[in-house]
């Protein structure tokens, strides 16, 4: 599910899964939960934060560009 199993481990699991109802249900539940988290729990960064970070960084760079020659 997390793409961490080796090809052999994955093949063994998939072969076993079809003959084991609890394994199937567990796999379906885990997969659904992972999918639901991925699809339903995302938030977009507010545009103003993007702008604020760029402004702060720009000011900082200007400030440093002025200050460094004074102290070197």
């Amino acid at each position, binding site marked *: 599910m*997390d*793409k*961490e199993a080796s090809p052999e481990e994955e093949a063994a699991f998939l072969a076993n899964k079809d003959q084991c109802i609890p394994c199937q*249900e567990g796999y*379906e*539940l*885990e*997969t*659904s*939960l*992972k999918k*639901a*988290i*991925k*699809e*339903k*729990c*995302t*938030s*977009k*960064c*507010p545009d103003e*934060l*993007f702008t*604020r*970070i760029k402004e*702060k*960084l720009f000011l*900082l*760079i200007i*400030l*440093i*560009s002025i*200050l*460094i020659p004074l*102290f070197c």
Partner: protein
Amino acid sequence: MTMDVQVENEIDPSPHARQIFEKEFMPHLDAMYNFALRLTNDEDDAQDLVQDTCLKAYRFINSFEPGTYAKAWLFRILKNNFINDYRKKSRGPSKVEFEWVEQSFAGEDDPEPSHQADLHAETVNEMLGDEITKAIQALPVDFRMIIILCDLEEFSYEEMAKILNIPIGTVRSRLHRARALLKDSLATYAKSKGYKADTLSGND
């Protein structure tokens, strides 16, 4: 003032540094904000945390190796920033409907939560994002982090071990435990709200 100058001297104002920042770091702003929001449970704190992380990342930009995974590097800074500066003041999770998660949690070595068998894939598919988000936010922070890193951001176990500074074996066990707690929480919630009552086993 001496301190300020010392700190500022560490910052690289070159166009190259700015280019790396724009090209490598800024595309991950949405993911960073989402992670910060899940950690702090507060929009203002999340914005401050992301801003601090970006400025810190710029300050240490010379230690970033271009071509390596910028997102993992940024998430590690964000996580450290959260632990050092924000954890104490962050708001607690919503405790109205999900407080059983806190009650049931005592440590990573606890036995498995008891309600997992009551949760079915169809129930999860029916749930709203808000309900799942609340359940995640009610998890203790170490479990919340690993769920977000793995299921939302799709980091590998090795990347998560580096971000969280824990052995890969701990990543596996913590993830297993976090998922068990989350399923337990959602099963209890689903039952209380009458989700797919016919598919619930009714065991308590």
